[in-house]
């Protein structure tokens, strides 16, 4: 967590404990902080302050975007095949389908156009700005162009939602998602706390609420707002935007060093999306390794003090194969050895050195030719 966000959170909890919906001075103290956060976040995302809906996180914001639009306007949803489950599962549950991506994770725009032409009921398309596993950034302008061409044949309207959770710390969301009608971000992915997220909504977009109750957030999200979380998210997003250029440059160098070091040190290890084959966020290194399974590799890396990941976790905590790797069409002998290394604003060069020391050893230990460990 960014120190600025932690300080902001503590300040609210200590000095503004009021319910922002109340009529008294303590309520006003909380309300002012909440609205300051709303203004700041709106500016950074390029929407009007009234379009900021605070939620319990990215998942709720994604659900609200899709179910809210379908609930208000009718129709059906469509999304990319590499969405986070918070979008993918909601679209599937509503009966919607997916659009293919290429081997670099870029949306197949022809397929998107075909799907839109085939089904005039589609009223919402959801395409994540940057994928959380492989980092690929989508060209939302090009997606919006396709939607513009299809809109006349879609009587329920045709809106664009983007899950910018994985992108928000690393790109200028306001610029890249300028033509999105709805944008999701999440606190903990920008250096803020868990349990807070935002759905940013353009003027004129109607949403049916998921939660009914006190009618907070302009009737779009009932429940007493988490003022501390919202303020901390705003502080984190502000400092992230302020430092972005220097942090991105440093993290890019660290990520390049990590990829270069690992691919040089270990045979049959390669970036899952080859460098420069598609734009991507700076902090995600996704590798494919032959003759190694992710699960035991993550075990050894955990023991060695490297927190890595691969697919997604199911309810039991077990590792499940990644639908993203599957959608890229990674060859079957490379896919089981997926390894995702995420860097952050606070990643140090020493940590990169440590990873470069322990990851080749762990892979060597698990390869079939390796001598049994002592």
């Amino acid at each position, binding site marked *: 967590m960014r120190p600025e966000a932690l300080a902001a959170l503590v300040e609210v909890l200590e000095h503004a404990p009021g319910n922002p919906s109340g009529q008294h001075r303590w309520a006003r103290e909380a309300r002012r902080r909440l609205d300051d956060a709303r203004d700041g976040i709106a500016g950074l995302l390029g929407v009007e302050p009234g379009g900021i809906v605070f939620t319990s996180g990215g998942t709720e914001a994604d659900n609200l975007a899709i179910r809210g639009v379908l609930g208000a306007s009718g129709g059906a949803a469509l999304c990319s095949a590499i969405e986070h489950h918070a979008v993918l599962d909601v679209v599937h549950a509503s009966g919607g389908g997916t659009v293919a991506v290429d081997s670099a994770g870029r949306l197949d725009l022809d397929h998107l156009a075909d799907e839109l032409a085939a089904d005039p009921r589609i009223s919402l398309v959801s395409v994540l700005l940057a994928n959380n596993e492989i980092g690929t950034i989508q060209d939302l302008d090009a997606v919006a162009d396709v939607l513009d061409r299809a809109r006349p044949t879609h009587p329920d309207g045709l809106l664009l939602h983007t899950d910018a959770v994985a992108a928000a710390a690393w790109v200028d969301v306001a610029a890249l998602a300028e033509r999105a009608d709805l944008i999701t971000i999440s606190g903990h992915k920008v250096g803020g706390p868990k349990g807070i997220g935002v759905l940013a909504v353009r003027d004129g977009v109607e949403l049916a609420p998921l939660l009914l109750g006190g009618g907070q957030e302009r009737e779009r999200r009932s429940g007493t707002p988490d003022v501390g979380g919202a303020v901390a998210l705003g502080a984190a997003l502000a400092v992230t935007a302020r430092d972005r250029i220097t942090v991105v440059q440093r993290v890019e160098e660290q990520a390049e060093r990590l990829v270069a070091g690992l691919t040089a040190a270990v045979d049959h290890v390669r970036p899952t999306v080859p460098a420069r084959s598609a734009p991507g966020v700076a902090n995600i290194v996704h590798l494919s390794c032959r003759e190694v399974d992710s699960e035991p590799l993550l075990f050894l890396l955990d023991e060695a003090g490297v927190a890595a990941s691969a697919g997604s976790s199911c309810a039991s*905590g077990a590792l499940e194969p990644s639908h993203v790797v599957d959608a890229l069409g990674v060859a079957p002998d490379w896919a089981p050895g997926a390894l995702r290394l995420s860097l952050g604003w606070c990643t140090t060069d020493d940590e990169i050195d440590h990873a470069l020391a322990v990851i080749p050893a762990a892979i060597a*230990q698990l390869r079939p030719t*390796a001598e049994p460990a002592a």
Partner: protein
Amino acid sequence: MMSGGVDSSVAAALLRDQGHEVVGVTLKLWGGESDSGCCSVSDVDDARRVADALGLVHHVFNFGDAFTEHVVAPYAADHGAGRTPNPCIECNRHIKFAAVDERARALGFDAVATGHHARIAVRPDGTRRIARGADAAKDQSYVLHMLDQEQLARTLLPLGGMQKDDVRALAAELGLRTAGKPDSQDVCFITKATGRGSFLDRRIPLTPGRVVDGDGREVGSVSAVELVTVGQRKGLGLAGGGAPRYAVDVDIPSATVTVGSKRDLLVTEQPVTGLRWSTGPVDGPLLVQVSAHGTPAPARLVDAGDGHATVVWADPQRRVAAGQSVVAYQGDEVVAGATAI
């Protein structure tokens, strides 16, 4: 391996207290509809919280694909072929003491431990045999009969010398949340609500069948011959009254179940396949057990080579359903295992 039950909880505690460097692992084996038994989220939660209480690192390993391939698919195929498989034994054979053991070795572990109630007897020549656990009522040596010398050398069964009551008492003493948890009984991938029939119905064709007596007269019918096991008495669509009748033969190709008296079920010899001696052939009288908690009966085992053998019972015994494990003991030690045909 921590299943989330009381036995493996205490096994982990004992090993920790013996000074081993213990990592708790729960297996995710089945992503299907079952939420009872060894694969459920609540059992993983129990295992994780017990590991937390014991100060152990805990991981969940996903062996779902291997489980489907080596346990669930053969379970369905065996029923389709008229056999009565024991999936827990296949899980031990292919998953727990094979795939998991292989991974444990790759990760640098010296041994794999479980909470089974069985012991590993080390003989004067250094070879090992699975032996009955101290608690006769909870003994699980039968389901571990297939472990070979290499596996036995890498396996720890810390509960083998304990009574179940003492295991529960120790769990309670340690404040483990699993202390009062009921023992698991059922096949972990089949739900109580829908049962074996509907599970198999989605995987293999089920065939309605005739039930005939020893003279070929039709006396009843069943909705699926694949679900009938030799020795079964209920669910055969028989008229009431008279002496009890049992399924004595199940013929899948002709969809026919033959019923007979208890006496018709008795045989003096039982052919088996897949025979494997624990530490080499043993001549002379043995005790042979044909179900997990069955009563062992005196017999000799005549090895015909290539895994084929005949159990020659000292006194006639009930015919064993094809597919069931047949385990031979000398005293408390497992000397051979095979599968009834």
